[in-house]
């Protein structure tokens, strides 16, 4: 009999739909639609009692959904709460309820069986639908069915009380299952099906929970209580990790937990004071935000405005974009939250691979990372860009709103985007609608932008360095591909040289540059960035206190000296070793071993 700790480590690869990494004990969640339903025969007066029992279950399910809808609207935003409105309408649906009651009375069966008969019939009709997107909606019917069956069983669905932190594992998570859980106890999510735009993915991103989906057969292999590691950075899931594997994930896990921890910091006053290094260099920390649940973090963690709002997070379930009015309201709210420092809205940074709903004629791209995405996608869908431009310009009349253009590869991307904004400004003017002043920034994340950074700096108002993509494109390494994971190195000298070059170009052009990728949120990397010349960093708000403490405790001149030495290194291993030894040696209290790159065990 093998004990749990003797089980062999096994690995899966799926689609990472959020960031971070976590390890913990598995909690398997049984998906809906797979309950065992038995046919119970009833007769006479029992039948009317059964109909009343069914109606009571509908009322109970309805009350739960009303609560859920309110909660989703509050934590995730109105545009994500609509799904529960559709569920409510399904529960209230005359056709559903009449059919179920007719089956109870006509066949003399219990409610559970009647619900199953009727919904199976509905689902069968859905299976026939040709349109992929509409057919997918059958998951909503399954979700409502599950809720009804649970209500009939007398259990409460809210009974999924997580009393300790867990890695939630399911074949498929219904939107309402995740929305109902106590998020503070969900360390990570792993499911066999699902995709980037699934509702579960959106919620996981909104709450900063590491999530990997599309694992195909992980659910079958995992048992509640098993140890597992979920790495939403690489899309990897490890079951029965060895002690060595757990150790390697230790640092990432701690970081992820810190990000998930949204409790107020006691020293809020200190968080608002200007931040300076020990040798007096001022550094500005801004917030990256995505969903409304994070907006209040901007002030709570003392961020100086919002350095990056990824506007594609306004996408609703299934990839519909809000209209001009919806976007304007969202940007105005962000500007209000951000205060004097304002919000930087990144134009939609998506391609067809992430937007099945907008993928029209082109079909599958062979190489989406190099394909029609980010600003290229926006420019090829003029109405999408024009709507966003109008919404931004109108919001800018009420608060400070700037835009940053994703994946700029040369000046023409900037000029064409500006032209669209200018045309929309004129059009708004002609309509008597107020339009505010907007500054334009360029995301520096592809090598061509780095190489012409001096020229870009003459035509834009600021730079944003997206380090995640910069690593991917500079090193030509697909971050989702396991086979080349060993080549994805943030501390590669080529990446550092690119960062340095972009920062120098910004300084020469007299414009600010903000570094807003994952690197900025890690103390060791932040120190290197500071040494390379960065003066503005933008990160997930919960990371701010940690980075703040680090920067306040070091000397910029020495960080610059260390960064200079990094630039001379031959490869990423040398840089990591140098960072480990020099940062850990100079400021041991700021850089304990677990937050530094691990020493290389050369074999």
């Amino acid at each position, binding site marked *: 009999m093998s004990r749990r700790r003797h089980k062999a480590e096994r690995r899966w690869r799926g689609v990472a739909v959020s960031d971070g990494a976590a390890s913990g004990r598995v909690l398997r969640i049984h998906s809906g639609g797979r309950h065992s339903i038995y046919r119970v025969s009833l007769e006479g007066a029992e039948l009317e009692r059964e109909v009343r029992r069914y109606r009571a279950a509908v009322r109970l399910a309805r009350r739960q959904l009303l609560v859920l809808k309110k909660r989703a609207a509050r934590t995730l935003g109105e545009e994500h709460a609509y799904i529960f409105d559709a569920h409510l309408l399904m529960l209230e*649906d005359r056709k*559903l309820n009449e059919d179920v009651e007719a089956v109870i009375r006509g066949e003399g069966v219990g409610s559970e069986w009647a619900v199953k008969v009727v919904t199976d019939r509905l689902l069968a009709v859905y299976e026939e639908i040709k349109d992929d997107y509409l057919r997918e909606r059958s998951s909503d019917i399954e979700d409502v069915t599950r809720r009804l069956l649970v209500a009939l069983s007398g259990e409460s669905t809210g009974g999924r009380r997580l009393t300790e932190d867990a890695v939630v594992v399911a074949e498929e998570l219904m939107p309402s299952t995740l929305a109902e859980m106590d998020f503070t106890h969900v360390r990570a999510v792993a499911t066999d099906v699902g995709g980037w735009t699934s509702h579960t993915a959106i919620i996981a991103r909104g709450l900063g929970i590491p999530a990997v989906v599309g694992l195909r057969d992980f659910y079958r292999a995992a048992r509640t209580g098993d140890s597992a590691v979920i790495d939403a950075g690489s899309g990897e899931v490890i079951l029965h990790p060895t002690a060595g594997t757990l150790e390697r994930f230790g640092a990432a896990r701690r970081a992820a937990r810190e990000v998930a921890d949204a409790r107020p910091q006691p020293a809020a006053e200190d968080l608002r004071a200007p931040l300076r290094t020990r040798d007096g260099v001022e550094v500005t920390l801004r917030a990256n935000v995505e969903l409304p649940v994070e907006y209040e973090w901007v002030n709570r963690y003392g961020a100086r405005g919002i350095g990056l709002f990824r506007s594609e997070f306004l996408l609703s379930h299934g990839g519909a974009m809000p209209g001009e009015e919806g976007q304007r309201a969202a940007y105005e709210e962000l500007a209000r939250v951000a205060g004097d420092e304002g919000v930087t809205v990144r134009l939609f940074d998506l391609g067809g691979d992430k937007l099945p*709903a907008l993928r029209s004629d082109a079909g599958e791209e062979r190489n989406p990372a190099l394909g029609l995405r980010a600003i290229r996608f926006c420019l090829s869908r003029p109405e999408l860009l024009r709507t966003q431009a109008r919404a931004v310009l109108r919001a800018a009349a009420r608060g400070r709103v700037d835009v940053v253009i994703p994946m700029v590869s040369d000046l023409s991307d900037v000029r064409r985007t500006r032209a669209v904004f200018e045309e929309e400004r004129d059009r708004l003017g002609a309509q008597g609608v107020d339009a505010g002043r907007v500054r334009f920034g360029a995301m520096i994340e592809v090598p061509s932008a780095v190489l012409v950074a001096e020229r870009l700096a003459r035509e834009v108002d600021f730079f944003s360095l997206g380090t995640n993509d910069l690593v991917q494109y500079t090193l030509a390494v697909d971050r989702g591909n396991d086979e080349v994971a060993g080549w994805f190195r943030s501390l590669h000298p080529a990446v550092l040289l690119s960062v340095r070059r972009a920062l120098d170009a910004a300084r020469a052009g007299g414009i600010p540059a903000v570094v807003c990728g994952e690197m900025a949120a890690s103390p060791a990397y932040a120190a290197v960035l500071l040494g390379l010349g960065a003066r503005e960093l933008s990160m997930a708000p919960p990371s701010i206190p940690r980075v703040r403490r680090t920067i306040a405790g070091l000397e910029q001149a020495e960080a610059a000296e260390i960064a200079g030495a990094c630039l001379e290194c031959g490869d990423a291993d040398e840089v990591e070793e140098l960072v480990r030894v020099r940062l850990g040696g100079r400021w041991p209290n700021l850089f304990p071993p677990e937050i530094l790159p691990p020493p290389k065990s050369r074999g």
Partner: protein
Amino acid sequence: MVESRVRIVNRLGLHARAAAKLVRAAGAFSSTLRLERADRGAVADAKSILSVLMLAAARGTELLITAEGPDERAALDALCRLVGSGFGEEEE
């Protein structure tokens, strides 16, 4: 009884959110409201979301909306406006 033809213009078609909006709108009127696919005669009760979803009306589908009852004109206008506006969703 009054009727009118409209075309689904939003890219996602008559999906869950659009259907929810339509059913909510229809529920505000006392008239009987029917949707019929012009191409193959499938009929739906506009006040039932399951029935509406079953039409599987993708973008470009033509619908015949019929309204019958005391507020039929207002009801028909409201539904036509909603469908014609693409349910207020973004288009590109």
